Structures are given as C-alpha cells and as structure tokens.
C-alpha cells in the first residue's frame, strides 16, 4: 500500500487555498442565510423528544432520501476523494463503488426490520434496536458506548473540516472557521434537532448534487470527453487507469469490503430508517438513494481523473499535494459561480455530517446510557438540547487543538461503527440463532480491537502488512467472535426474543 493512503486520507484536514472572491463570499452568505431560515422554521415544529431525535417519525420519502445522501458523503467526496484518486488512480474508486449495492443491501437487511421495530416499540436509536433484539440493557449500553467513542472522533474531524472550508471561503482564519461552522450547526441542531437537520440536509444534498453534476459536465467538456482524458493519462501514467490504480489488489479489495459490509453499521445512515413516515414508502428508498449518491459522486471520479490529465498535459499547474485537486480545478479553470457553488457544497457536506452525529450523540447521552443503567431521563427534549450543546462545544475545542491527535480520532470512526455494530445489528436482526452473549462479545471485540490496533499503528508500535487495515481486521474478528459465541450459547437463543421482535424478524 502506498504510504499515507490509509483511512487517514479520507478526512478533510488539509489547508485549502483561499477562495475568498466576492462571488464565493456572496454564495456562501446566501447559503448560511438559507440554513438559518430552515432552522428557525424547524425549531417551531420541535415539541417532543421524538420530534428532536427522529423527526416524529414523520419524514417523507424524498426528504429522507436526499438527507440520507447528504450525510453519507461528507466533505471527503469533494476534497479528499478526488485527491485520493489523483494520488493512487482508480484504486481509490473502491471506496465508492460499493454504493452500487450498499443502499439496497441496507434496505433488505435493516430498513424494514428497524422501521417495524420503531413502529412496534417506539424506538428512536440504533442501540434501542440492539436492546430490543437481545432483550439486553447491557448490549444496548455497550453499543451506545462504542458509538459514542466513534462519534467523538467524527465530530472533532468534522469540526476541523468545517473550519478549513469556512476559512477558505471567508478568509477568517481556521479558529474562527471552526467556531462559525460549529456555531451555525449547533444553532440548528439544538433548536430544531433532527427536523432542522433533515431539512437542511435536503437543501445541502440538493446543492451538493447540482454542484457535482455541473463539475462533472465541465470536466468532460474541458477535457474533450472521457476518452481524450484517458488517452492523456495512458500516454504518461498507464498504471493510474489500471483496475487497482497504484494500490495493491489486496488494498483495493479491502476498501471494497470495509465500505460495503461496513455500511450496515453506520449510525448516521441506519438511524434514518426510523424516520420514514410510512414504512411502505421504503419501496423506492434504495433506488432513489442510489441514484442520488451516483449524482453526488460524479465529482469524486471526474475531478480525480480529470485533474490528473490536466496536470499531465500542462493545462493545470502541478499540485502541492493531492488534496489540492478540487481547489486547483475550481480556482484555476471553472467559472467562479461554479466554484462558489462547490465551496458551499463542501461546507454543506461537513455541516450535515456534523449535525447528524451531534444528534445521534445527544440521543446516546440522554437516552441510551440512562436506559442501560435502568433509568429514564424525565425531560429527554431539554436534556437532548443540552447534550447537543456540550457535544458541539467539546468537538470544537478538540478540533482547535488540531494536529495529529484529531486525525487519529477521526481515522477509526467508520471502522469502529462497522466492527461493533454490523454483526450484532445487521446479522442479529436476521438470525434468530444469535445470542446476547454473542452480541456483547462481538461489540467488545470490535471496540477493543479497533482501539488497540489503531493506537498501536498511531504510536508506530506496529505496522500492518500492505493492504491490511485495522478496520477490516476488527470487523472480521468481530464477525468470527459473534458466530462462535452465539454457537456456544445457542441454548438461550430462541427464548430470549420477544414475540413482537420475533415477528419483525420473520417477516
């Protein structure tokens, strides 16, 4: 594996060049004005904890689909991803290729069962589903703790990413960028909860899709079509357009495994299943979400490949670092209005991801952890808002410290969710032979393995062989432990499922 091309590259932590032009600032101001307007509207409609955490289970199909696309990509699709392609070629596509199957896989494996569990039990969080499935407060609490650890990392890196983007648009400095971005996100998260988040995501996702399609068309036009772009690259760097790019086959396939199977454990996407107003609308959800994702990811592919060709044929200057691929294209050759749209789209991507994680984190603190200890918070809405503020402020402070520690925190977010939640949740909701002991052992294995391997790698006490990542190893181990312990404790499996949960699993 090429050094520096691990999961750490999936995060937006680079310094972007200044894009502070009048048009970019004007579009940026307009963007923030729309976000604030939507937030005020949503705050007036948030009256209960259910409104705050799952939008009162009353979100329509189109809104939920666009929102789900929006939180699925983050700023990586606009900056880190194209830069990654520029650095390693088509091997970087194995991160996004799983989108062809993940949405419909999630629909078959999780969407129906989680939405029906929400219907039967009024569940509002992912650990809720684990608690109901295994009739275990311990499993619910452990899942909540694992998610909280992952969220700490994601939030810090998202706060830093917001600071980087806002500084690039407005030229206010990284510190102010972090606080402005987190302040606006916090304002709508705390006032309007997930309702504000969803409708801001709809706006933000639409913006991202429009920006992505326009950039895709621009790159094809500027480069004389994909064939001409390929010819330019093949003449000087044919490995770039090989099926693995400059990665080893093991590394590229590892990405596919982690980002396909791992998608079943990402709470920001899975949590959305509770929110759909009518469970029968799930029929069109995977198709619409997949099409939406394809539109948003057009920029990822076209900029990565296009900029490579434009640098090779001298139409763009050589890049200082791969992450400059998108900014270099936008600030050197695209119309300034398109650049402004994309920069706002990047801000939108980071803010929608941050909002989603703040909301999930607040639900864990005010709902799942008290439930795990056999208690209930009397006013979940009020405490949810307070937890939202605390999480956002803690993330902003952590991000301000910047440096490698923040990068380290962000590296294992995806892998941690995947290794702790996929076996217990995705397999557990579809296999009545799974036991609570198996679930607890699997969650613990995922949590401890991910933390131990990532820490050892961070401290350079251990180096993985080429193509192997901590996320992949932890997820595989978690699966194996889940199956083994469930088999060893199989006598308790059938008796530990409530009748309504059993029906949901059998349908």
């Amino acid at each position: 594996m090429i050094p520096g091309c691990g999961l750490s590259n999936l995060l937006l932590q680079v310094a972007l060049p200044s894009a502070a032009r009048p048009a970019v600032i004007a579009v940026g101001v307009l963007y923030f004005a729309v976000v604030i307007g939507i937030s005020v509207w949503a705050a007036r409609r948030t009256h209960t904890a259910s409104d705050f955490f799952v939008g009162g289970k009353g979100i329509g199909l189109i809104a939920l689909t666009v929102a789900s696309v929006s939180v699925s990509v983050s700023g990586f699709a606009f900056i880190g991803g194209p830069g990654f392609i520029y650095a390693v070629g088509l091997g970087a596509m194995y991160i996004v290729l799983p989108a062809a199957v993940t949405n419909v896989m999630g629909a078959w494996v999780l969407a129906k069962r989680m939405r029906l569990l929400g219907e039967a039990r009024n569940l509002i969080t992912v650990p809720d589903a684990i608690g109901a499935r295994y009739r275990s407060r311990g499993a619910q609490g452990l899942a909540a703790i694992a998610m909280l650890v992952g969220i700490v990392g994601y939030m810090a890196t998202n706060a830093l990413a917001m600071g980087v983007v806002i500084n690039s648009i407005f030229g206010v400095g990284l510190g102010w960028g972090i606080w402005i971005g987190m302040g606006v996100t916090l304002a709508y998260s705390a006032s309007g909860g997930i309702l504000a988040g969803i409708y801001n995501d709809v706006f933000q996702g639409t913006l991202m899709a429009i920006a992505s399609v326009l950039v895709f068309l621009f790159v094809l036009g500027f480069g004389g079509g994909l064939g001409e772009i390929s010819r330019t690259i093949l003449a000087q760097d044919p490995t770039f357009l090989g099926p693995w790019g400059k990665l080893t086959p093991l590394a590229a396939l590892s990405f596919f495994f982690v980002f396909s199977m791992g998608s079943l454990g990402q709470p920001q996407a899975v949590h959305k299943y509770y929110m759909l107003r009518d469970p029968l609308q799930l029929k069109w959800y995977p198709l619409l979400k997949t099409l939406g994702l394809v539109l948003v990811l057009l920029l990822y592919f076209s900029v990565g490949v296009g900029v490579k060709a434009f640098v090779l044929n001298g139409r763009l200057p050589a890049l200082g670092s791969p992450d400059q691929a998108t900014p270099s294209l936008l600030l050197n050759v695209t119309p300034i209005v398109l650049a402004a749209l994309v920069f706002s789209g990047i801000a939108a991507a980071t803010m929608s991801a941050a909002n989603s994680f703040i909301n999930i984190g607040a639900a864990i603190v005010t709902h799942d952890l008290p439930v795990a200890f056999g208690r209930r918070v009397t006013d979940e809405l009020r405490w949810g808002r307070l937890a939202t503020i605390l999480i956002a402020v803690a993330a902003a402070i952590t991000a301000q410290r910047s440096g490698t520690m923040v990068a380290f925190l962000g590296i294992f977010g995806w892998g941690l969710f995947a290794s702790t939640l996929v076996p217990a949740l995705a397999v557990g909701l579809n296999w009545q032979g799974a036991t609570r002991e198996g679930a607890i052992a699997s969650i613990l294995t995922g949590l401890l393995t991910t933390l131990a391997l990532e820490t050892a790698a961070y401290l350079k006490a251990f180096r993985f062989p080429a193509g192997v990542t901590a996320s992949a190893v932890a997820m595989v181990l978690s699966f194996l432990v889940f199956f083994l312990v469930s088999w060893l404790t199989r006598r308790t499996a059938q008796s530990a499922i409530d009748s309504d949960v059993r029906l949901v699993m059998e349908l």
Partner: protein
Amino acid sequence: MTESGETTTTIVDNTRHAALVALIAGIFAIATAYAAAFLPGGTPPWAPWLLALGIPIALGAIMILGAARGRMGIGPLKYPFAFVVAVLAIGFCAALAIPATEGPLSKLWLGLPARAAIVIYGIGLLPIIVLPVAYALTFEAQTLNAEDVERVRELGREYKTRSEGEQPS
C-alpha cells in the same frame, strides 16, 4: 402450526441456514486472506483471490439473509442476487486475471481501457440497474405490505399493555 406453516418455516429456515453458512464461509475466506498477509515473505498471490470471491459471497449471503421470508424464501430474487454476486466475482477475478496492457494505443470502452471499464461500469454500475429495481418490483410480495405493518402494530400494542401491567404501581 399448520402443515403449510411447517412447510413455510422449513423453506425459510433452509434459505436462511444456507445464507448463514455462505456468510460464514465468505468471512472465513476474507479472514484467511488477511491472515496470509502476515506471513513472512509478504502477501501470497492467492490472497487477493480469496477476497475477490469472499466479498461477493459474504455480501450476497447477507442480502439473502435479510430478504428471505414466508413461503417464498427469496422467491424471484434469486435471479438478481445470483446476477450481482456473479458480476462482482467475475469483475474482481477478471481484474486480477487479465494481464496489464494499458497504454496509449489501448482500445477504450466508453472512454476507459478494458480492465478499468470492467471495474467502473461492471462492478460500479450494473448492480445499480438490477438490485434497486428488483427490490421495488418485489416489495409487496417479498419485503413489506400493509398487512405486515398492521400485524406488527398489533403485537406492539400487546407488548405495551403487558409491559405497563408488569410495572410496579
């Protein structure tokens, strides 16, 4: 349980059992590939092949596990599932097996050299055309209908009543 009920349970159990076995086999193949990477002398050439086969098997298996229901098992979904597992496995294996011949004179397929086209258009786009459409077309029969939702709501109401009855006053 009625005779037809027993038949239904058997079919579903067989489908789910087979899917579970396939999932475990897929995960074992993936685990073996990773374990092999730790061998002295580096990753053996057969390790990526295990991933190329293990990943499609594991993904196909977990989809079948989720989709199996009632008397139908996975019913007509066996065709799209088989198609997608085959597309992924053939795509990965073709990328591994076809020698690297990319160069300035390579024939392009929709703008990409052959091996890249297999990956981008085969693995990345073909499943999009098949799977979500299959999901939507079989939704009421295979996944969820109004009667299912009502049954779940009814049991949920019973659970709530029972839970409230068990709580100390």
